[in-house]
């Protein structure tokens, strides 16, 4: 939509042609995404002016941040041409371990155990994908099944022990500082900055793009592809674990299926954010905006009291339209 409007303007002024707009959007995918976000917010305001307030902001951030962290897993994996379908199970099991261990071990040990387990799962993923060359889709899908089953069994074993999310995590995930800054931003802003900087500036970031762009070329240039992939999937699982803890804190409840609902939206956020599933193209800033867009869209559909059926159909249609628009923009120049 926005690109068409741009094209119309471009015909009048010779230095702003359709191609120039297209190039701008291709190189700066954030601009159309932020426009889309603004449009969504305007529609929300137009439907119910009273809803645009502080609590909408806090609630949106509370659920957009864990989704954005899950989207980071997908973004990193997709940059190498992979995907991580085990993130939902990893996040859920991390939350369950944290909540069941916290009463006896204290929150710090519980969180360490949860994240350690997540990293171990990521290590198995990485060994399968990096060393045994198993297709990432299969490996992470299989690990997802394994982890999900283990989470259910573990949850059953720990039923008598009870599960409580440590109050510190609840405060971090859903509390605010000075009444208007969601605490979770204090964790997320440095984390996001780190990921974005690491992708743009660090050697490891460049290796991810190199492996995704052309794995053979990367290997022939002396990149140890296996170690890149191994590290990547460990990081991805760790991030998924963090997201799981935040979901546990935001909802103040844990279960083996806690995060299942957010698996496909995490892929969608990365796709909307302009990361190519074939690898080598994209970045994390788009995925963050993608996660915010999806969260605002869920609120919007909720406010409009759209029935669940239509909501799901619209959700799917929007993913498809945005993905198709990207494909056009990036292809035809």
């Amino acid at each position: 939509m926005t690109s068409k409007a741009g094209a119309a303007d471009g015909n009048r002024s010779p230095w702003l042609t359709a191609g120039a707009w297209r190039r701008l959007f291709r190189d700066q995918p954030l601009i159309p995404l932020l426009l889309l976000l603004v449009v969504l917010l305007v529609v929300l305001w137009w439907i119910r002016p009273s809803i645009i307030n502080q609590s909408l902001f806090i609630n949106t951030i509370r659920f957009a941040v864990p989704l954005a962290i899950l989207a980071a897993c997908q973004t990193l994996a997709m940059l190498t041409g992979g995907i991580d379908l085990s993130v939902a199970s990893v996040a859920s099991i991390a939350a369950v371990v944290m909540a069941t261990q916290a009463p006896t071990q204290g929150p710090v040990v519980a969180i360490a155990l949860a994240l350690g387990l997540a990293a171990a799962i990521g290590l198995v993923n990485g060994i399968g994908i990096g060393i045994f060359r198993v297709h990432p889709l299969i490996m992470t899908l299989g690990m997802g099944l394994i982890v999900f089953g283990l989470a259910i069994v573990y949850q059953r074993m720990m039923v008598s022990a009870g599960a409580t999310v440590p109050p510190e995590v609840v405060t971090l995930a859903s509390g605010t500082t000075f009444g208007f800054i969601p605490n979770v931003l204090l964790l997320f802003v440095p984390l996001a900055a780190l990921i974005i900087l690491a992708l743009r500036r660090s050697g490891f970031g460049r290796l991810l793009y190199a492996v995704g762009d052309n794995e053979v070329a990367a290997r022939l240039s002396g990149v140890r592809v296996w170690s890149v992939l191994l590290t990547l999937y460990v990081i991805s699982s760790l991030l998924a674990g963090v997201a799981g803890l935040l979901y546990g804190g935001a909802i103040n409840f844990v279960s083996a299926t806690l995060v299942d609902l957010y698996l496909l939206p995490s892929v969608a956020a990365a796709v909307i954010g302009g990361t190519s599933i074939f690898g080598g193209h994209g970045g994390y800033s788009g995925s963050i905006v993608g996660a915010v867009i999806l969260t605002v869209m869920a609120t919007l559909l909720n406010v409009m009291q759209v029935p669940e059926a239509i909501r799901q159909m619209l959700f799917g249609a929007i993913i498809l339209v945005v993905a198709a628009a990207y494909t056009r923009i990036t292809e035809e120049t």
Partner: protein
Amino acid sequence: MTVATSAPSQPGRSAATRALVRGVGRDTWTLGLIGLLIALFVLTKMIQPTYGSSQVQNLATSILPLALAAVGQAIVVISGGIDLSLGSVMALTNVTAAALLVGQTPEMSVAVVIGVLLLGLVIGAINGSLVVLSRVPDIIVTLAMLFVWAGAALLVLGTPGGAAAPWMRPLTSGSFLTEWLPRALVVLLIFVGVVWLPLRRSRLGLSIYAVGSDRLAAFRSGVSVGQTKIAAYALTGLFAAAGGLALTAATGIGTPIPGPYTLLSVAAVVLGGVSLAGGRGGLLGPIIAVYVLSLVRTDLTFLGIDPNYSTVIQGVIMVGVVMVGAYLTLRRQRA
């Protein structure tokens, strides 16, 4: 394929032996799976001596929806795609059939069943057309359509309900001729045979393998890549609809929430020896894989192990088998 090229260089082998080697080479995976399945049956019999024909019939009935889903997924994977919306399409066809079958005469119910199968074909064709026209990767398009079709299923039936035709349940349970041949298996094999066998040797079947194996080469040999992909997705939709009908038959109602069929069908396809890269594999492997995965679950129940471990074991089998397969390929490449 490596067998085929290396065989002529080995002297002292008759043509028949070479053909045999080539045939076995191509079907090793399926033969291995059959061996695994037989071993599992023997194991089951050892664990539970009373395991007999009626249990075999029940097994065949309960896995019919997943087996049909796996066959559908296999076709689209062979063509080089993947269908993540398969579970939602099953839910949609399941509720459509259940909603339309309430209080129908037997004649009308047959018409409804045929209509639902056609609906699956159309849904699949829509998926395929969107993949071809939007030029977005298959996995993203079908991920988006997963939500669309799941929403549509909720539109048809907001809550579980509806009914199945009285003749559907007997068609998919019990046995045929001998008590050791479950009727559900016969129905499955006939349906797959009627749809796939004529196709496989036809121009379309070859095109599906060609497009999956190498798109560009297929295009340059005059295969219409777009039409072939749409046809492959349509066939997947048809099998998904059959799976949805099998669900209606098994449960007697329609449930608008998609089951775990999408991911399990991908697991069965991979275990069944179909390459996710496309162009390689058949439909028998995935069907046997579904049996293997389900029999493992049965055995765990017999052994008194928490049935929740079965998901773990299914995952371990899938990852383990694929890892071993990948490892063997790596070694062959180095050798």
